[in-house]
Each structure stands twice: as C-alpha cells, then as structure tokens.
C-alpha cells in the first residue's frame, strides 16, 4: 500500500511536468522543500502566483513585462528604426547586458521545429509583420535567432517574408558558437556578433 501523503505525490507530479525535470529530480526537490523552513516554501508559492498574476505580454515586442507596452518599447531614448528579432525573453536580457544595442526588440517565443510540431503560426511572426506595416520608420531588422538548426531555419523563413518589404535585413555574425544558444553566449562574443552583423 502506498502511504505517501497526497500533498507530497501531488508536488512530485507537478515538478515532473516541468521541462528537464525527471522523476528523481522531482522527488529530490519535493523532499528538499518538505524539510526547508516554512518561510522558504511560502516565498516560492508567492513568487509563482506573482509570476502568473503580475506579468503581461507587451503588445508591441511580445516580450514579457510588468506593464504594457514594456519599458523598452516606451523608452524614447531607444533607436526606433531598429528591431532585433530573438527567440526568447532571456535572449533580450543577454543582448541588453552587452550595452551595445539601443534599438527595439521582437520576441518570437520559440523557433520553427517540425519535429516538435512548432510551425511559423505558433510563433509571434504575424505580430511582427503587423508591426512592420504599422510602423513605416523601421530601417533595419537584425535576425538574432540562435545559431542552431531551428534558429537558422526561423531566420531563413523570416528572410523570405521580410525581404519583399524592402527593409534592410541583417543576421548576427557567426562569431557565436555553432549549435549554441544566445542565452549562453558571453558578452564579448555577443558584442562582436552585434558589431559584425551581415546583410542577408
């Protein structure tokens, strides 16, 4: 007979549903929290609620933010003729850390991957095209998807859609480790990649 309390098995199951968490890790996390001080468990629960209740999506750049439009889209000091297209919100953070880029962003929330059933319609590509039509001042788009198979495919797809619009298109130079993620590239590598972006 399984005598494990329901609350314990439930948390194990919830952890197990997260990406990259196997059954062993799920158990370890649950029993860690079971022994941790009550304040720590409450802080985690509170952070989870805040995450879903106080985060919005910026209607312009599709990035996650506390307000809509987000701080970057509202900032008048940014170069509004430049849009950098990235896969994930974390990529925005990585590029911001370089302090070398002063334009706007567009977050796709993923990359094309038929194997995982992700097609162009699952990404914020329609929103990007709408934005390009509404804001005629845009002079350059930097395609900063990851330098792996899916990122490359997504960049090629965007290239085919945007090129006919006559906007200058550039791609981050291949200073990035091949097969790597933008998120893990260090600042020097990213800065070099931003400086050396090439027209496509």
């Amino acid at each position: 007979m399984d005598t494990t309390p329901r609350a314990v098995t439930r948390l194990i199951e919830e952890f197990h549903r997260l990406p990259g968490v196997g059954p062993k890790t799920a158990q370890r996390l649950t029993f860690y929290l079971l022994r941790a001080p009550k304040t720590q468990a409450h802080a985690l629960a509170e952070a989870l609620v805040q995450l879903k209740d106080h985060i919005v999506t910026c209607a312009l750049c599709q990035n996650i933010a506390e307000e809509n439009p987000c701080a970057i889209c509202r900032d008048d000091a940014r170069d509004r003729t430049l849009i950098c297209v990235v896969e994930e919100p974390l990529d925005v953070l990585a590029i911001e850390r370089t302090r070398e880029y002063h334009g706007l962003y567009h977050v796709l929330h993923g990359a094309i991957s038929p194997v995982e059933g992700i097609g162009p319609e699952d990404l914020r590509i329609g929103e990007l095209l709408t934005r390009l039509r509404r804001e005629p001042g845009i002079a350059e788009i930097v395609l900063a998807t990851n330098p792996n198979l899916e990122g490359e495919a997504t960049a090629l797809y965007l290239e085919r859609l945007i090129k006919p619009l006559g906007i200058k298109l550039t791609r981050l130079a291949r200073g990035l480790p091949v097969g790597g993620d933008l998120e893990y590239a260090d600042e020097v590598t990213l800065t070099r990649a931003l400086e050396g972006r090439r027209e496509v």
Partner: protein
Amino acid sequence: MWLTRLALTHFRNYARLELDLTPGVTLLHGNNACGKTSLLEAIFYLATSRSAHAGSDRELIRWGATVEPIPFARVETDLERGNGARTQIEIVLLPAEEKNSAPAGEADAARKPNGRVTKRIKVNGAPKRALDLLGELTVVLFLPEDLDLVFGSPSHRRRYLDITLSQIDPRYGRTLLRYNQVLEQRNSLLREFRERAVDPHELAIWDRQLIEAGTYVIARRTETVERYNNLIADIHPRLTDQREILRLAYQPSVPPENVAPTAVGKELRIAGIARRFAHEIEAMRPRELGAATTLVGPHRDDLRFMIERAADGQMVDAITYASRGQGRTIALSLKLAEVALMRAETGEDPVLLLDDVMSELDAPRRAALAQAVMDAAQAIITTTDLADFSPDLIERARVWHVCDGEILE
C-alpha cells in the same frame, strides 16, 4: 598509436577488468561467448562512441548482476601516440532519466534493458561531446560480419563509410549529424503537409539546409572512395595472386554532373553537387509530398564493389556475381585499404582490432592479414584457435587466455 591500459566496469559481461596493454600484437584466446569480443567492443566504443554492432547502447551495460542502485557501465583507456603524447578517454553509460514515465516503479524502469542511454565522455578529464571524441583514438575493426558490407543492404555500407570518415575528418561527423537533424525536421514537415496546406516557404528553409550539409557529405564520400580505389588498386591484386581487379563504385542518390572530375577544380565540383542536389529536390517535389518523406540525398547513397569477371573481362557487381570466398577477400581489401587511408590522413597508425576473422580466411589471405597485423603499431586480436596463426606471429605476440570475464597471461 597504441593503448597502454584498458579498464571496464559493468561493461557487457565484465564486472570489473583492468588490463595493461603493450604495442605490437596481443592475442586474446578463449572459447566462444566468453567475453573476448566485449573487449574489442569497448575499444571500438572508446574510439567512436558507437556500438560495433548496430544495436542498442543499453545492451552494453551489464544488467541484472549489478548491485549498484543505478546500473551503469564505464570504459576507460590510456593511449600513446607516435610523438609520445598521451591521452586518457573515459565514457560512462547511464540509463537516461525518462521524462513523463510514471514515478511509481521507476527503479524497475531504470533496470529495463531498453530505452535511451546517456553517455558522459571525458578526454583527459574534461567533458566532451561525442562529436569531439572522434579522431582521438582511431581504430580499424575486422569482424566476421564484414561480409555484410559486400552482400548486405546499402545501410551497412553507408554506416561503414560514415564511421571511417568521421574518424578521419571531425567536420564530416559534425556535418553528417546536422544533415540527419535537418532530414528529421524535413520529414516531419512533409508528414504535416498530409494534414494541412503546403507552405512552400517552410519547405524551402529546410531544403536549403539539407543541400548545404548534404553537399559536403557527398563531396567527402566521393573523394574518399577515389582514395580507396587508389589504395585498392595495389592491395586487391596482391590478395588474389594478381587474378582479380576490384573497384569501389560510389552511387550517390544525387547523380554527379556530366563532366570529367579532373576537368574542374574542387570548388566548382562542390558547386556542381549543390546545383544537382537542388535540381533533384525540385524534380522530386511531387513524389516527396506523396510519400511524405525525403527521397533524395546522401541518406539514400550506396557503394558497390565491382570485380572483373574472369570469363569476359567485364566489370560486374560483386553483390550478384561474387562467391562468399570472393566476398571475404573484398571485405579484407576494403579494411586493409582503410588502415592505409587512416595512416595517410592522420599521420598515425590506427589500432587494429580483429574479432576471430582468421578462421574464415584461406592460407594466402591469412598471410596477408598477418602481415598487416605485424606492421601495425598495435593489433588486438581475438581467436578460438591459436592454430590459425603462424608460429612466427605467436612468437612475437602476447597471448592472453580469456575465460568468463577473467583474463590470464
């Protein structure tokens, strides 16, 4: 290069084995199914991080008898190069932690000899990807199943070419991996197009990457088969008392352009392959949409062995016309050419691994193989019968007796 040490833990039938090795010939003598082959398999795995027999990596872990909470297998080796440089390689195999498997009864799941395996590779103590391991240790493996290279399906021959080329050229290994990933994505998309409208833009992005990676694979295979032919032109007549001529015929699924290869430079040749590839994909489009799979590219290449027919001097396909004995000689010529190719490409002698192949050969072929073995920096050979070897070779060899996971000198 040569191995100076081999250590196995929970690998196949070995609970634990530590072996000091020396340059030159090592003969592992023992009955069938007593674990001689596992030693060669371990060495092959350290070189390629692939199983010598197309099968599951999970079968390499010694299941059942282990008392470890989580079953695993470890193989380690120290090797030395001609210039004195030393390298240490270690691979640990663990059953992958399966996501979304029921938490209950997971200990049982981890013990099941199927499912995925995680490999942890270290070279000189530093973690490496499987791709970065290639080229550290180069080996040529001689198996009784080599006959399948001649008479078996094209996939045997592609796997053989791929493993050889990956050991010689790390870029080939990387590009092939990329090609296979693009292929998987493209096939998924073609299957999706059965359920929804075809978007030509979506297909085009995968076509381009398929052609990029595939062109390199085809170009490298073309070049390598030519080099094999130069070597085999010497080797095969020697093995057949000058009676037979052998030529490898590479049959790419993307046909070459109709120009003599010598007439154009390498760059133009590669551009030519890419052009033909693009053309074939375009032509094949309706059939691919119907079949929902990629019908053109190096994953459909073949390699054939052409021999001269005695009756009329015609070059004919060994797959139909060769006897089993001729097939064995063809496989041997191929492997001996591989040894020479690796030596030329890497500047280093590969380690020769022979799994009970002598007994399959007749005396002249045996002598030729024995010569190659004695010329090698290191050869590790398994046998059930020492009488298959000349006294001369046994004299020079270290002989070990293998029995049920134990080894005695």
